[in-house]
């Protein structure tokens, strides 16, 4: 993962072609429960409206699935646009608990206690 994301220039931003041909995002795709939030970086003026629209739903910490629902778009579309924004350093992400830690009993116990405290 890039330490310092390069600042997007107009030429670096591809035209809006989300579903036509671009169903796969570059790199590891964001999962539905990945958490995203806008970065401190200023938005470049050249940003496409679709990207700007998505940034409006990331002003706080939120999941990819929620962004998709607020946008009224399928998660696959949100995944692609968010991956762009991540690459350009305009959002930051907190990845979901990695599958290797799936069976992490500490986390499961925490979920259990959390649920029990709802009763």
């Amino acid at each position, binding site marked *: 993962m890039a330490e310092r994301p390069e600042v997007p220039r107009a030429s670096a931003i591809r035209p809006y072609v989300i579903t036509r041909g671009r169903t796969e995002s570059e790199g590891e795709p964001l*999962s539905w429960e*990945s958490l995203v939030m806008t970065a401190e970086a200023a938005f470049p003026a050249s940003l496409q409206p679709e990207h700007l629209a998505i940034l409006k739903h990331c002003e*706080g*910490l939120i999941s990819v699935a929620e962004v998709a629902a607020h946008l009224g778009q*399928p998660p696959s579309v949100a995944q692609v646009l968010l991956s762009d924004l991540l690459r350009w350093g305009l959002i930051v992400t907190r990845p979901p*608990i990695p599958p290797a830690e799936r069976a992490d009993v500490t986390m499961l116990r*925490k979920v259990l206690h959390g649920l029990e405290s*709802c009763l």
Partner: protein
Amino acid sequence: MVSKAASETLAEAGPPPAAADGKYLDSNVSGAAKILVVGPLGVGKTTLIGTVSEIEPLSTEASMTRAGARVDPYAGDSGKKTTTVALDFGRLTIDGDLVLYLFGTPGQQRFLPAWRDLAKGALGALALVDSRDLAASFDALDNLEDLDLPFAVAVNVFPSGPRYDADDIRTALDLLPGTPLVTCDARDRASSIRALIALVRHLIHVATEPS
């Protein structure tokens, strides 16, 4: 609505939401986990998610390609190459720093491709069973077994449905002895939470038992 009341109760009990409208998570949240809620049409998936969720449940339509476009009673246009799967989801923040997402997905066999994506990284699944039609859940249970996703079974008891005892249901659904079986009223928060607790206890058991 039950879900509205439930989320208000939670908002009162829990810490103040990060944003006034509760759209965003608390900034202390450092990780997310997910559980799938699966089952046949009308079994109570949306109801359960709404009952448990701290936000109004959201929904999204995931599109997917259909491998074999066979005639399907629910698809209006059988010639379509892609179909959409309506997914509902909700969330519950735990201890202020972990968020649990509940994703509801229909159980029919034709939706298996959509499940693969969703099941990746899921802790496990709660399979809802309709007391009026046990057989309607076969597909969902098959899918879970195909995906090797640990699950618990919650029977939603409908007034018009027959009363079975647990052994009858286990036999009808061909459940493994270790698979938890509970009854649940998805409209009731405590009942829904208890079904999730049965699942998570099972997940802990699966994770800790020597294999």
